[in-house]
């Protein structure tokens, strides 16, 4: 049993690009769900249009890289507007249904062979990330014993954490302002806010767009870091992982989604390596009859799920949340 290896795998995942993708997506969900009370179950859709906005315009239409990035962000704005106009008048639970359906519809459209001349179908698109990786200033990877990142991951992580910091700063500045107060009030009771003369629909739309752009950035970052994008990167599980990260860290807290994403990936990778070691080798620690190697890679999800349940029972506010604030809600 190599505990050093387990620790290294866990920490590398927690500070590496995978955690960053989910941190960005969860920051968006935090704006939607944590502050404005919008139950968006289609964050993967926002990530997809961001990634494909970049990839399709850069590869298929030969748009310059920087402009393609802008198109990726604009694509998530457009999705937010199209999604928001008909659905923001709905009650929270209907919004959840509409958003998850929209995200899946978009994924199927992109996946469909009949659109393959633009989206390349299930093959996905590659060959747009060269300008990003060409900017890499690092000579080699990072290896300080407990954290090991490859050269390209190190560059991605650098850019990614800067991006996360900027997004957190934006959320912090907005949420301490009267604008953020209106948003949190809408989460509590939109009729009351309306009765005080605020245009609730406009605020919800602004929140949906802002969180959607953060989701779009997550998708763009994912596409750049792996230098390709395929539809299966944006299944519904992506949204649920991002929600998990948000709930672990604590909703309606600026750093909640970031810490949550790091913990989520720390546990997921650490447990993966742990169970992998238990079942690998000629004479595995766990007998093969109990758990074989292919099962081991799935058991981590069971354990993480169990942990999430315990968290919601014993610390429903997440790591950073305010228990008192949550208790009031449970009337």
């Amino acid at each position: 049993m190599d505990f050093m290896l387990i620790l290294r795998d866990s920490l590398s995942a927690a500070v590496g690009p995978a955690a960053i993708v989910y941190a960005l997506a969860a920051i968006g969900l935090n704006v939607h769900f944590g502050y404005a009370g919008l139950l968006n179950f289609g964050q993967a859709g926002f990530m997809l249009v961001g990634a494909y906005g970049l990839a399709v315009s850069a590869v298929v239409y030969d748009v310059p890289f920087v402009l393609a990035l802008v198109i990726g962000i604009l694509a998530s704005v457009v999705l937010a507007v199209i999604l928001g106009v008909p659905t923001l008048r709905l009650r929270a639970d209907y919004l959840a249904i509409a958003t998850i359906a929209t995200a899946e519809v978009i994924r199927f459209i992109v996946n469909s062979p009949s659109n393959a001349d633009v989206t390349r179908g299930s093959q996905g698109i590659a060959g747009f990330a060269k300008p990003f990786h060409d900017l890499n200033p690092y000579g080699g990877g990072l290896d300080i014993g407990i954290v090991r990142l490859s050269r390209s991951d190190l560059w991605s992580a650098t850019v990614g954490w800067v991006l996360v910091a900027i997004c957190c700063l934006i959320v912090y500045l907005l949420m301490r302002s009267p604008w953020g107060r209106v948003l949190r009030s809408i989460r509590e009771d939109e009729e009351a806010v309306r009765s005080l003369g605020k245009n609730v629909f406009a605020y919800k739309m602004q929140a949906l767009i802002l969180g959607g752009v953060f989701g779009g950035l997550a998708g763009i970052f994912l596409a750049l870091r792996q230098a390709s994008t395929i539809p299966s990167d944006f299944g519904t599980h992506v949204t649920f992982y991002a929600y998990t990260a948000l709930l672990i860290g604590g909703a309606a807290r600026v750093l909640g989604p970031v810490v949550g994403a790091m913990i989520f990936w720390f546990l997921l990778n650490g447990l993966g390596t742990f169970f992998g070691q238990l079942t690998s080798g000629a004479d595995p620690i766990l007998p093969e009859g109990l758990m074989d190697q292919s099962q081991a890679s799935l058991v981590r999800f069971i354990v993480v799920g169990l942990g999430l349940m315990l968290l919601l029972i014993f610390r429903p506010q997440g790591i950073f949340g305010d228990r008192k604030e949550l208790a009031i809600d449970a009337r």
Partner: protein
Amino acid sequence: MPADTAPTANATGRAGLTGLAPEPGVPKPDPIVSGSSITRQFGGLKAVDVEHLEIQRGVITALIGPNGAGKTTLFNLLTGFDKPDTGEWSFNGKSLQGVAAYKVARAGMVRTFQLTKVLSRLTVIENMRLGAGGQRGESMWAAPFRALWRSEEQTNTERADDLLARFKLDAKREDFAGSLSGGQRKLLEMARSLMSDPELIMLDEPMAGVNPALKQSLLGHVKSLRDEGRTVLFVEHDMDMVRDISDWVIVMAQGVIVAEGTPDQVMADPRVIDAYLGAHHDTDLSEIDEQALAAEVAEEIETAQTEGEAKE
């Protein structure tokens, strides 16, 4: 409005109500709200069917009626929270037909709710600050830059603290609004709605669920609203309160305004007693001739049947 009731110097406020005929829909000399033929249908039920309604400026008007009379529905219609099937109404002479609820509030007509809507997971002071209208910091583009809204926030906070002190909520300033008692929530909602300095404040059952000790102070607060020149319209079941503080009473029953007048006039009005207690409430049942009653009912059924057939 007919020429002979045009506003005169002494026709404003309470003075304008003296000598008005206690009839449904009577025109007021200085109306702040005036509406005509407002109807709202829910399936087969006509919840509101108001022919004419005027509310005098600067007085306390009570809207009373038995359960299901359509009082709250009328409230929702006037404030834009519900859309009527027909009708038009104006506030300060400006038509409010099809105007969104938030614009109605901005125009100076602010309401509270029967089931109080405090924002539980915001503190009392944050609830109050939200009430202020036209804040620059509430625009998304100005929001990140504190310098743009700091002084405005300061002024609003001072106003909020004054109002909290007046409503004796200053000790609860930093508490979550969700931790307040029912009566305190009513007070907070009223105080919050005053943050935007409304001309007309509409209270939906301000006394419901308030303990008797707090009731007296709530009554005082409502009166003080009138004394500082605001118009108050409130829905209430508590007759003591209606008699105590209202200058004018409008009675609704089954969606229709059945009577209007000063509290004393209305309490004595047979139409009001009928609406609350039924037309035969003071008749001893044993005195009713059963035979005659049966004949009456049979005749009613027959008429209804022939009418139904005629329609087909």
